[in-house]
């Protein structure tokens, strides 16, 4: 199942060595532990940079997250559940 979500969410992330790695996310009252970052990429939107992460979570699901470096906001963009 695929769903386009586009909701701001809470994410616990580690910032180290010039990179940001999401660890845990909270959405719809549920906490998901991020098992693996499958792909990370970025794109410029005007002056800011959006960092995208395709992550595998537990309980199971594939989430696409966006982090905006100016607004300091995490957004859940899309999700896939089998």
């Amino acid at each position, binding site marked *: 199942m695929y769903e386009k979500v586009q909701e701001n969410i809470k994410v616990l992330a580690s910032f180290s060595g010039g990179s940001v790695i999401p660890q845990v996310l909270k959405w719809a009252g549920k906490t998901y532990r991020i098992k693996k970052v*499958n*792909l990370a*990429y970025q*794109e410029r*939107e*005007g*002056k800011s940079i959006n960092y995208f992460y395709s992550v*595998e979570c537990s309980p199971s699901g594939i989430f*696409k997250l966006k982090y905006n470096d100016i607004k300091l906001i995490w957004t859940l963009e899309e999700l896939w559940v089998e």
Partner: protein
Amino acid sequence: MTNDKKLILHIDMNSYFATVEQQANPLLRGKPIGVQGSQAKRTIIAAASVEAKKFGVKTGMPVHEAKSLCPDIILVVGEPRKYSSVTKKFIEIFGHYTDKVEIFSIDEAFLDVTQTARLFVREKKKEINKKKPFLSVIPAKAGIQQDNKDLDPRVKPEDDKLGDSSFDGAKEIAKRIKSDIRQEIGEGLTCSIGIGPNKFLAKLGSNLEKPDGLVIITPENKDEILLSCKLTDFCGIANHIEKRLNQMEIYMVSDLRKADNWKLRKAFGVYGLRLKRMAWGEDSGEVLDWHFQADAKSFGHSRTLNKNVVQKKELEKQIYLLSEKVAKRMRDEGYFGREVGIWLRFADFKGVGKRRRAHYFINDGLKIYNEAMGILDQIWPAKRAQEFEKAESRSARRASIGIRAIGVYVTSITKNAPLSLFPEDKRDQKILEVMDLVNNRFGEDILLRGKILGFPLKRIVSGMGRKKF
């Protein structure tokens, strides 16, 4: 003229867009997927996964054709920016091994490792010696080396065969690049690498083994490989050139080697002689240092329309949006152009196109649009329009004679253009600069031209265009 002392790598990412999507979403892995330009009905397959290719799905194929070949194909809308971002990452990886990296396309690159390959032979040797137990570095005559190699499972027999040849260094670089891509970008991303003494042979090598191949063409084995190739295996010989070669009774590489220079030149011009050099595995092209890439020769964008268009007015919006897109890329890279062209592709896949010279150098979308509309008036197929009037039903008309795709391009470009001295042109240029400043800072489409209000707004997403990384 050839230089067989060079060491060139050609790296081709396998089923690139599709593999990136499978990397991002493990639920797509192992399944036939097609990356499409947009969700429009008439879009094409921009990339097919390895699994979809097994069903015969190919890049550039209309989606309906792909579905008929592979009914279970999963279609994913492509994200060009995602692929550009991943491309930047692998270019960074290539930069660890040589400064001579030429980006051939979004998923292909040439690397000249002539100067650096030897370093990696030495490093590999050191690595092997580190891995071996102490006794294994005792000279072989002591009769101990072979036994100890068997004790250490990390030392593979082929590692020990590593000689001083530069090709071994290039092979080591190729292996490390494959491993770096898997570790730093994603384990699902694979590439085929060809190693050769020139760009042509390196590219041929990367095409011979897919996916995840590594083919080395040396001056010693090149004849055997070349003579076993089909003419269309060569980069630069597509079906239409093969057909013309066949008309000259050239069917195989060996025929091309024996072909008469004069006849080839008469048929293909200077390119004919290049074809013959290909048959001998010769290529004098240099890998361009990636900081000094060749300047662009043209800028263009095209779009396959959602439905066949039969009225000239219906094309206005498309031409305007394409013109603005071309102009923005030109301004971003600091170019102006003198010639504007458009092409139309009809429902029967025949086409027509024309270009014309503007009065002065431009990079303004509206001016490109005005020139393009002028060309459209000239090439508008009056005969087809008459057929359209005669056709029985509207749908029959669209199906048979409508316009299926359109493209706008600008050529004769330069970075040092003498600009118009008319005050209104200077004002327009200033307005464009300010618009770009605002849009670059706050995001695309924040400031738009008033003309767009006449058209329903929808961003064109298909097509990657020529991109700098």
